[in-house]
């Protein structure tokens, strides 16, 4: 083969490949410029905050920077006995500096996260340190409070030396690093997060199941009714969707409270005694009822969009071939709706797992979810790094579910509409 045939030239003598690239380049740049704002937006609103959250959840520089000399001096300490004078002196030096900057309060808060009891002894140390004489700081500091003579508290300080820590994650699982440096669970009566995680999964799971059971017939009806009725039904499904979430939750509060409409009705038909009205709110029941209703459209819509595409002649074929209506449904119709079921369940489950307002309002103490705990740490304790850690745990949980779903059902099978 000669070389001329290998390289095809355009009429003006430029190699075809070069010419093609040149012609396409303009379109590529145009296409990129079109999506660039969105890309930029996503980076600012999504990638950056999540990165920041990830960083925050493991960042522990604050204490490291507050006690630089102490940690330097502690490098040679084995943590068995009380540290040497050298460490106490370094700690004193750091501490005086913090007091000058009025930052010792922050230190006490931070150290208190690691071990309870730091707050008061740091306050005492601040007062006492004004009268300290030079030299033999070990004796002087230990004299301020007996906890300063306790090796455990020094170990607690030492644990804050690294710049990064996974402690918040452990705390989210009700675990911590004990004095021996082993990861252990906290005492049973102090475990709060595991219960919350489990409850979150449980509520999300059952809400998904309830949504599925209710949405399937609705979606089927929507897909098979004549247009004029199905439009009306569709509006009924979507109307709550367009109403504020807060309003819907509040209306559930009106319905479900002990003197509420539902209870009045039960009493009215004699189902329950007037002095024995069941509590349907401020517990799990409230969360179940309100979340199911609120998340229902997210199940109906993907199911509907899939069912709409299933030809009615398939069911007819199933029946004409001898299948009872149930067999025709179970063997023909149902398998074809699986993409919609998958999409709906995944959507509802993931939304439910991170649900916040509704459980906060109607869930009470036994119906709150992990997201309420995250909000609590964001707003009340201001332990943002812990909130970030739990947020990331939630996110990774969702990713795991997504991955599992992909393994079992296959993400290509999903159909959102």
């Amino acid at each position, binding site marked *: 083969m000669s070389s001329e045939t290998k390289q095809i030239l355009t009429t003006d003598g430029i190699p075809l490949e070069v010419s093609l690239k040149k012609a396409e380049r303009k379109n590529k740049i145009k296409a990129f410029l079109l999506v660039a704002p969105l890309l930029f937006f996503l980076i600012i609103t999504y990638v950056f905050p999540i990165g920041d959250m990830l960083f925050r959840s493991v960042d522990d520089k604050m204490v490291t920077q507050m006690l630089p000399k102490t940690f330097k001096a502690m490098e040679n300490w084995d943590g068995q006995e009380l540290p040497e004078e050298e460490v106490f002196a370094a700690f004193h030096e750091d501490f005086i500096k913090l007091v000058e900057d009025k930052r010792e309060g922050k230190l006490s808060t931070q150290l208190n996260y690691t071990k309870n009891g730091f707050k008061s002894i740091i306050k005492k140390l601040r007062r006492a340190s004004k009268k300290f004489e030079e030299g033999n700081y070990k004796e002087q500091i230990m004299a301020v409070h007996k906890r300063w003579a306790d090796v455990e508290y020094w170990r607690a300080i030492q644990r804050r030396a690294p710049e990064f820590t996974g402690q918040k994650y452990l705390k989210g699982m009700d675990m911590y690093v004990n004095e021996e440096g082993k990861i252990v669970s906290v005492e049973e009566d102090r475990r709060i997060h595991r219960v919350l995680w489990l409850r979150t999964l449980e509520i999300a799971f059952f809400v998904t199941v309830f949504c599925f059971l209710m949405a399937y017939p609705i979606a089927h009806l929507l897909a098979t009714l004549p247009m004029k009725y199905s439009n009306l039904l569709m509006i009924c499904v979507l109307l709550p969707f367009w109403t504020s979430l807060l309003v819907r939750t509040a209306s559930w509060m009106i319905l479900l409270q002990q003197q509420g409409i539902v209870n009045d009705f039960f009493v009215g038909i004699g189902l329950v005694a007037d002095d024995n009205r069941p509590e349907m709110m401020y517990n799990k029941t409230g969360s179940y009822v309100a979340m199911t209703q609120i998340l229902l459209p997210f199940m109906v819509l993907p199911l509907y969009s899939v069912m709409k595409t299933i030809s009615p002649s398939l069911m007819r074929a199933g029946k*004409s071939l001898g299948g009872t209506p149930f067999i025709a449904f179970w063997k023909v119709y149902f398998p074809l709706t699986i993409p919609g079921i998958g999409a709906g369940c995944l959507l509802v489950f993931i939304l439910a797992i991170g649900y916040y307002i509704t459980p906060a309002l109607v869930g009470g103490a036994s119906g709150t979810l992990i997201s309420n705990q995250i909000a609590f740490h964001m707003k009340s304790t201001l332990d943002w790094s812990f909130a970030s850690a739990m947020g990331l745990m939630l996110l990774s949980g969702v990713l795991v579910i997504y991955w599992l779903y992909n393994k079992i059902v296959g993400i290509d099978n999903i159909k959102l509409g």
Partner: protein
Amino acid sequence: MSKQKDFVKFENVDKSYDGKVLVVKNLQLDISEGEFITMLGPSGSGKTTCLMMLAGFETPTNGEIYLGGKAISSIPPHKRGIGMVFQNYALFPHMTVYENLAFPLRVRKIPKDEADKKIDKALSMVSLQGFASRMPGQLSGGQQQRVAVARSLVFDPQLVLMDEPLGALDKNLRESMQYEIKHIHESIGVTVVYVTHDQSEALTMSNRIAVFNDGKVQQLSSPDELYEKPVNSFVAEFIGENNTFNGEVSDVSGGKCKVKLANAEIIANPISVKSKGEKTKVSLRPERALINPKDKMDNIHNGKIEEVIYHGDHTRVRINLLGNPEFILKVPNSSANLDIKLGNEIKIGWNSEDARALDPK
């Protein structure tokens, strides 16, 4: 076993969907065993409704349908044992070809080895051996069609219904499938009720054709009779090409009638006209009229050639004849007919028995 004459019987069947309009009116239809019968008609003529009533997806508003002598109105579709081929095949898209064919056998609890034999047989009948593990989506339209046919036959039903099964195929494929279905019908002798709006399909495949219009069977007869001897002007116009003259009967005598047109009189065969003064529409097939006839014919008139369209084997000639500017002639392309030129005046002749005087409608 002798063939049952009224294997399927529609008896005074009415059907209305909305309580206002009858889609099927007082239908009487007997279908004998082993017959290939086609319900032919324009859309909205009630033919598909009849099929759906037979399959059990619609209930007759009035009257009764019998299958093998038994009234079936109260039997649900899955117990009727009728095979059905749907318009868009209705293959189960999530099942392989094998599973599609196995479905009717599984629900009948037929043991697997026996079922496999039946499936093999059905697939070889439509020459699709080796396709058993394919998904319907991986097949072409024609192949899907064959699978649908195989599936409707695999459980040995006595009756198979086909609802415009070839509607979605292209012309060539449709023609070859027509022969294939016809051959399958001939080889296994199953009774087939076939619905179509394509008259050439109906003419090639059927033993008998029921022409539907307006919820009624207009004519039920064999393809040739339907074409040659339409009983009313709807059938005459719906089946094949047709030349018509509207006029008034001026005389009926001796199996012939005279029809007075606007400015001439023709002799015709009185089919649905009885007496003088009736309005009528005379129907004449294009191939029954000859140019410059050599034999003696009782109708010979002059016309002017308005249009000549070359079709290869024949030429279509549009002639303004006796006030009808749409009179069509089919002229075979032989050297004898070379003088057909636009604008020429020619003589057209036909026999009176081919000109059927039908209802005026």
